[in-house]
C-alpha cells in the first residue's frame, strides 16, 4: 500500500484503502486489497499489470459503474461511492472515456457517434454541433470518414473516433482502457502521439490502463503497477526494477526484460 497525500490540492482522483472483490458469497475473489493512490491533476498516470489484475476495475470504480466493498474514491472532493444517481451523472460530465473496443454505437455513423454527447448533453444548435464535430474530425485526421459506420473502420480509426467522442465535452479527466490493444506497433505509436498532442492542447488529467509495457511508460508522469490486489507507485520506469516488493522486481524482469537488482 502506498502512502496517500489526501490533503494534496493537486490530486484529481484519490483511492483510499479501497477493497473490491467479485464472485458468489462463498467464493469471493479479491481483486483490490486496501489500495490507495493519488492521480495528480493535469498529469498522465499509467496503470499497468497483467491480465485479470483489476486494472479496468479501477476505471469502473472511478466512474461509479462499480461500487467498492470498502474504502473511498474521491474525485476532487466528492466520494464517488457515496453519490446518488443524479450526482453521479453530474460527476461523469467531468470524464471522457476511451473504451477498450472504442464502444462506438454500431447503428450510428462516425459523425453521429462524435456528435452524440454534444446533441444529448449540450444546448448547441445543429450548426454549432456540425462545426465542432467537423473541427474534431480534421484534428484527428478523420475527414472523409464521417459517413462510415464503425464496422467499416480499422482498429486504429475506431480508437480515433472513440477519442474524438471522449473529448467532445472538453473533460477534465480522460480515462483510457487498453487503448492500443489489437493495434500494430506503428498504429500504437501514432495513437500515443495523438494522446500526447491532445493532452498538451487540452490539459486534461489522463489515466491510462494498459498492458502495453514498456511502450506505454513513455507517456507516463506516474506509473502504478498492479499485482495480486496490491500496487506500487513510481514516477519513472527506471525505478521499477529497484522496487522493494519482490513481485514487482519479478514483474520487471519478466515483462521489461530487466535484471533483478
Amino acid at each position, binding site marked *: 500500500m502506498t502512502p496517500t497525500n489526501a490533503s494534496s490540492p493537486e490530486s484529481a482522483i484519490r483511492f483510499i484503502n479501497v477493497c473490491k472483490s467479485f464472485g*458468489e*458469497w*462463498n467464493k469471493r475473489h479479491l481483486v483490490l486489497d486496501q489500495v490507495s493512490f493519488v492521480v495528480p491533476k493535469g498529469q498522465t498516470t499509467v496503470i499497468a499489470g497483467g491480465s485479470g489484475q483489476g486494472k479496468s476495475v479501477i476505471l*469502473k470504480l472511478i*466512474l461509479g*459503474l462499480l461500487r467498492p466493498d470498502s474504502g473511498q474514491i474521491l474525485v476532487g472532493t466528492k466520494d464517488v461511492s457515496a453519490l446518488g444517481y443524479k450526482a453521479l*451523472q*453530474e460527476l*461523469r*460530465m467531468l*470524464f471522457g*472515456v476511451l*473504451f*477498450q*473496443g472504442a*464502444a*462506438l*454505437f*454500431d447503428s450510428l455513423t462516425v459523425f453521429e457517434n462524435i456528435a*452524440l*454527447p454534444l446533441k*444529448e*448533453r449540450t444546448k448547441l444548435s445543429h450548426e454549432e454541433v456540425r462545426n465542432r464535430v467537423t473541427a474534431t474530425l480534421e484534428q484527428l485526421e478523420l475527414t472523409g470518414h464521417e459517413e462510415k459506420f464503425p464496422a467499416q473502420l480499422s482498429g486504429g480509426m475506431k480508437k480515433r473516433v472513440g477519442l474524438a467522442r471522449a473529448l467532445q*465535452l472538453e473533460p477534465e479527466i480522460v480515462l483510457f482502457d487498453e487503448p492500443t490493444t489489437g493495434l500494430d506497433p506503428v498504429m500504437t505509436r501514432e495513437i500515443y502521439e495523438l494522446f500526447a498532442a491532445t493532452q498538451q492542447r487540452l490539459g486534461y488529467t489522463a489515466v491510462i490502463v494498459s498492458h502495453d509495457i514498456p511502450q506505454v511508460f513513455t507517456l507516463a508522469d506516474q506509473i502504478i503497477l498492479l499485482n495480486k490486489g496490491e500496487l506500487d507507485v513510481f514516477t519513472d520506469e527506471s525505478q521499477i526494477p529497484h522496487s522493494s516488493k519482490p513481485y514487482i522486481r519479478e514483474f520487471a524482469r519478466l515483462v521489461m526484460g530487466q535484471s533483478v537488482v
Partner: protein
Amino acid sequence: MNQSNKSIFFPVRIAGGLGEQALYLLTDLGRMGLFLFFAVAGLLKHPFRFRELIKQLCFIGAGSVTVIFFTALSTGMVLGLQGYYSLSKFGAEGMLGSAVSLSLIMELGPVLTALMVAGRAGSAMCAEIGIMRISEQIDALECMSIDPFRYFISPKFLAMLLSVPLLTALFDVVGIAGGYVAGVNLMGVNGGAFFAGMQQSVTNHDIILGVVKSYVFALLLVWICTGRGYFVQKIRGAGFGAESVSKVTTQAVVISSISVLIFDYLLTAVML
C-alpha cells in the same frame, strides 16, 4: 470419519444450494422490478426520442405485419374448416361466425400475436441490447451521462405497447376473413348467417378482454426481452461474450412465451 463428515454436510450443502438459488431468484426479480420502474420513468424524461420511437414502431409494428397476416390467415382458415366439421355434426353450421370470431378475439389473436412478436422482435431486441452491453456501448452512454433508459429502452417499451394491440386487431380481422373464406366460400356456409352469428355473440366485454390481454402481453414481452439483454452479464450460467447473448436471447423468448401463456390463463380466469 470422512464418510460421516460427508453424510453430515450433505444436507447442509443441499440447504445452502437451495438458499443460494432462492437468493439469486429474489435478486433477479428485484433487478427486473427496478428495470421496469426505470423504463417507465424514462418515458417521462425530457427530451423524448420520437425518432427512436418511430424506428421501433417500424421494426416491431410494420415489420411484423407479414408474419402476423399469414399466421392469422392460416389460423382463421383452419378454425373455419375445423369449426364447420364440428358444428355440422349438430347441424349448427350457422354458428361458425360466432365460434371463429370469439376464439380469435378473446384467445388466439392476442396469444398468437404475442408469440409471433416475441419470436421476431423480442429476440432481436434482447440480442441488440445484449451486444450493446458486452461491447460496453451501454457503459459508454452512462459515462456520457446519457440515461440508457431514456435513450433507447423506454422508446422500445412504448413502441411495443402501441404495436402489439394494433397487430392483434389486424390478426383478428385477417383471421375472421380467413374463417369466412374457409367456411363460406369453401364449405358453403351461408354468408349472412356467418356475420349474423358473429354480430350476436361478440360483445364489448369480449373485445375488452382481448385488448387488455394484448397490452399485458406487450408489457411482458418488452420487459422480459429488454431486461434479459440489459442484464446479460448478470445472468447465472449464461457464460461470456457472444455465447452469453445467444443463451440469454433464447432464455428471453422462452420466458416471455411461457409468461404469455400463464397470464393468458390468469386473465381469462379473472375477466371472463
